[in-house]
């Protein structure tokens, strides 16, 4: 049951922001797909290179580690928007619906608070990580921390969006990432 919102109302404005965040979500999901595909292909090539051609490529390992950090943090932000992180529902499910709604709000607020505190660490992390460089490729450790901060920033925006939509009693956002396994039939 989609809510119809009239132009000029608060809800209409929120929906416009949500449409922008839909776009952000799409970019996140596309990025992690690209990162995972690239890592899989590069690693396959590395095995071939080592076993068949007898050569080693040490940059692949560094790249692979970098990509894992980025994929995890970007993926974590994407999961926040669609409420698909691992959670324990059992206890809260036993509560009456109105109370559950308050729990939802409190959880969003708690995660938002965490992400805000972590975002405030940018200067400190920058000061202590930028001097350190990975031994082989010379990637500064800040390149890795950047992934974390992007994740916190986007995650915080998603939490705010969720809080506002809950308060205004609006529908949850559309899921961008696929959910169900799609089994092709007719083998």
């Amino acid at each position: 049951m989609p809510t119809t919102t009239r132009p000029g109302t608060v809800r209409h404005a929120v929906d416009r922001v949500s449409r922008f965040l839909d776009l952000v979500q799409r970019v996140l999901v596309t990025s992690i797909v690209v990162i995972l595909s690239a890592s899989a292909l590069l690693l396959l090539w590395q095995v071939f290179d080592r076993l068949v051609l007898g050569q080693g490529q040490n940059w692949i390992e560094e790249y692979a580690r970098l990509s894992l950090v980025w994929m995890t943090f970007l993926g974590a932000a994407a999961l926040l928007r669609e409420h698909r992180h691992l959670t324990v529902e059992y206890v809260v499910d036993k509560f009456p619906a109105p109370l559950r709604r308050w729990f939802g709000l409190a959880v969003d607020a708690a995660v938002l608070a965490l992400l805000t505190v972590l975002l405030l660490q940018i200067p400190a992390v920058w000061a202590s990580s930028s001097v350190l460089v990975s031994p082989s490729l010379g990637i500064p450790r800040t390149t890795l921390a950047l992934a974390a901060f992007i994740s916190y920033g986007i995650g915080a925006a998603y939490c705010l969006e969720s809080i506002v939509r809950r308060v205004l009693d609006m529908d949850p956002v559309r899921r961008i990432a696929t959910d169900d396994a799609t089994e092709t039939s007719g083998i």
Partner: protein
Amino acid sequence: ACTSTSGDAGSGGSHELILGATSAGGSLEVQALQRWADAVAERSDDRLTVTILADGQLGSELETQEAIINGDVHGVSGGVTGVPELDFLAAAYIFRDADHMLEVMRSDVAEPWSEAWVEQSGVEIVGVLERLPRTLTSNVRVEEPGDADGLDVRVPNTEFQIDIWEAVGATPVGIPSQEVYSALETGVVDAQENALDTAYANAVGDVQQYVTLTEHTYMPQFVGVSVAFLESLPDDLQEILRDEMRAAEEWLSAELDTAYTDILEEWESQGLEIIEPDVDAFRELMYPVTEQYAADIWGDGVLDRIQSEF
């Protein structure tokens, strides 16, 4: 908040130095550090205590350094500093032997390098611990560089270390340290190169047949302490810290002399063959790589000075 001040009224407060080490708890290095800690506590009447957290409990050397910059931890002991000038000491045939290494590290040659560490993370070198030489172990008999042609060798994933082994025709493979044993056992790689004591601690002897004493690298291990922590100490405690470190360094050097023969004897009795290779032939191929990097990392003439003046 670098020091924890407990209720030790009257004695001017007590100081605790938390130091993270990457080596295993039972290793000689950690034993040396523990002796240092015990001696410091005793001589200072517990006004200064040193807590050693070994086994990489606080993470890698670089992670421990981040914690030092944050002020959660005050010291680190390990082979990697993140300072290119210091980390380059892992290159091949820089030093003739451990004494040569220690002599250079205690001279003015090393001063700009230690300053670079202070500059980078506010960590000062308070100790230079000796280690046994890096040496090749293998499942293939390696006496001269030609025997290493096409050999899959596990080396640290560092550019110059990879180039050094490519120079003798081997295929360097980067494998995480906890996988080395398994990789040697199953044959993912044929060989590994590491400090003799580290190789021994990793039980490399169980899965290798030959030890080729290339002894290409006499690499130090640095004990670094946060400058901010050192400055918070009264002068007498600083002195105790440094004095006792020198005693620990000397204890370790003596222990390593016996450890060297013990390890080789133990391996021989396990059935490994100890090979005295044609070291000059290895040096001839590896040293040019060291020279090529040395100019970039240390500047012109430094490597020559190390070779000629010490």
